């Protein structure tokens, strides 16, 4: 059961990453690219780390994976916001 859940989570993560890369290539504006890379990729990597936490079966590894997922969920928007702010102020 946990195996299936972890596989589904990992597949969701890889799918979100692929969508993020597709958007970064296809979108025309820098802000659109930021929007795509900042959200989908963050969610993808967090989902993949949660899958690893579920599948590892080891308490320490699961805790580390969950902490890493929380770290990515916090810092992804920070980096995205810093970059978007720089682009916005540069073009104004």
């Amino acid at each position, binding site marked *: 059961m946990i195996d299936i859940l972890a596989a589904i989570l990992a597949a969701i993560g890889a799918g979100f990453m692929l969508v993020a890369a597709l958007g*970064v290539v296809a979108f025309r504006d820098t802000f659109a690219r930021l929007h795509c890379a900042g959200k989908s990729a963050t969610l993808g990597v967090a989902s993949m780390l949660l899958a690893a936490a579920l599948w590892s079966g080891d308490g320490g590894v699961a805790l580390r994976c969950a902490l890493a997922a929380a770290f990515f969920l916090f810092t992804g928007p920070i980096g995205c916001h810093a970059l978007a702010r720089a682009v916005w102020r*540069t073009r104004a």
Partner: protein
Amino acid sequence: MSALLLVLQIAVGLASLLALWRLVRGPHLADRVVALDLLATLAVGFLVLRAFQTGHWLYVDVALGIGLISVVGTVAFGSFVEHRAREAREEGP
């Protein structure tokens, strides 16, 4: 599980190639930084998949290190872009 992991790794590798294309092509510096940030995130995902595959969970620590450095790098690049534009405006015509 191993066949699924192979498919997921191919998907992440394809995404890395797409991000690399944007890194090479990107018209502005900010586009390149976006692509670089995405590449670091994809590297983290690939390392987690590799940890799945081999059972060496040390890869997750490596992924966490890459993520740490990538965030600091993105924020620093954003600051650099902003300051460079301001200096260019002050020196301008």
